């Protein structure tokens, strides 16, 4: 009856992996708002021509992309899925 994020049919290792991914995205989310963002909210130094804070946000965006991409490719390789009923079309 408790809320459940991932199926009990997943292996414990897989559940751990998926939970870590969710935690990662929650951390990214928190990194963009108060109070964490205040630590990175500077105009300088300019990196790649961009203000530091804009660069910081771009890194978070690219980082999120790479993590989700790795998860997807890992699923492709191993046939794993966050959802045991997922069709394999």
């Amino acid at each position: 009856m408790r809320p459940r994020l991932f199926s009990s049919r997943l292996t414990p290792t897989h559940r751990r992996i998926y939970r870590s991914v969710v935690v990662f995205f929650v951390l990214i989310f928190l990194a963009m708002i108060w109070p964490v963002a205040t630590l990175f909210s500077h105009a300088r130094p300019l990196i790649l021509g961009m203000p530091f804070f804009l660069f910081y946000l771009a890194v978070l965006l690219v980082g999120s992309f790479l993590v989700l991409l790795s998860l997807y490719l890992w699923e492709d390789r191993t046939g794993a899925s966050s959802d045991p009923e997922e069709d394999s079309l």
Partner: protein
Amino acid sequence: MVLAVTLGYLGISLGVGLWSGRKTSKGPEGYVAGDRALGFLVLYFILGASIFSAFAFLGGPGWAYSRGAAAFYILSYGTVGLVPWYFFGPRVARLGRKFGFVTQAELLSHRFQSKGLSAALAVISLIAFLPYLTLQMQGAGYVFNVVTEGRIPNWAGAAIAYGVVLIYVFRSGVMGVAWTNTLQGMFMMVLAWSLGLYLPWKLYGGVGAMFERLAETVPEMLRAPGLGADGAIWTWGGYSSAIVISVLGFSIWPHYFMKIFTARSERTLKRTVVFYPTFQIFLIPILFIGFAGILSYPGVEPSDAILPTILMSLDLPAVVIGLFCAGALAASMSTGDALVHAAGSILVRDFYRVLFRPDMTASQQTRLIRILVVVISGVAYYFAVMSKISLVALLLLSYGFVAQIFPVLLAALYWSRSTRPGVLAGLAAGCLVTTAWNLMPQLQWQEIHPGVWGVAANVLVMVVVSLATPPMDSEHVAQFVVD
């Protein structure tokens, strides 16, 4: 010349929109969900382009120009906003295929066995769509007006652009939306990068040089929270809660959510979510455009006019201006078409059919959706050009309302103990609190978005009422909830 390029572009959109609908089936599964056969590329552009609305093309630079780093919130929420789809998307798509759902409310009202929920979600969707659609139309009219130096008035520009939208949505349904968005999305990407790099280079000698100058003169515009609407430093509460409410609403906007049902397969859906940030990154050059205006073009009013103003002042070849005009129209139309189409579908499937005519046939539904597509466009057009009512307040309210659907969806898919009275009471509490905080500014604290308080009330009431009412039939619930 400018006009010729723009009209040529509209002609191509129309052609693609009409051509794309020729193969789908006649019923709502075809008209609303594209027979659940959309592939990766089309789905990628439909999601990318419907979010990059007139707001991104005109409002994004406008925010960067007048409020500096405050505009970074747009970049932030898209970073994580779609990620929930990776996890609930495949399940939602599967349920759609199993039960024949094509809208969000169908899924949720079936899970909670409630016609009232279906009607409530339809009403929330409409309240949210109308100001949004109206702003897209105003954007389209505005672009025509500025680049023809007033020769084409706003009302005529909006009418031309949305006449085209109306024809292809009417004729081709979701496939028209899908294929025109693919065309418009590619076009916007090219244009955003070229303008975003060209303008700083032209005006300052490069992006780095531009930010160097800005960091010396107005450093407060380069760091969050940027400036508020009044030009003073914005609050972290306002900045952060704008991100929070947008992230909560992002994956759940009804016209957006419906597109889950169009995916060909669950892997396709996941791949689309994975690659979404590659579309998001194009906001960065869009923001450069606004920053380029700060020192070179002070005092432009309204700030949304900054991009057309810069372009018109640079003596660019007419073809380039025409292409910009087409790009801005693409941004407006690719969001507007999805909204019009979704609004018609939702009114028929989730409101009219559920409450009054459960026996409607598939072809009756499609016909009524088409009629409503025309009616809704007409209403939005009225607000866009005739009415003097300001919609900005309504728009603020609508984001707060949409976010209230997020807890309902989580309860539906992840919490088997959630009950019909629970989610109904939660939704009502959330909307009431959001409205109250909007109407009574004295309740404001740290400029936190009213919708955030709404979501808090929503979750609290939903949990308490669910636990106080008997659980729903476990066999029924097990079809929906992760076990």
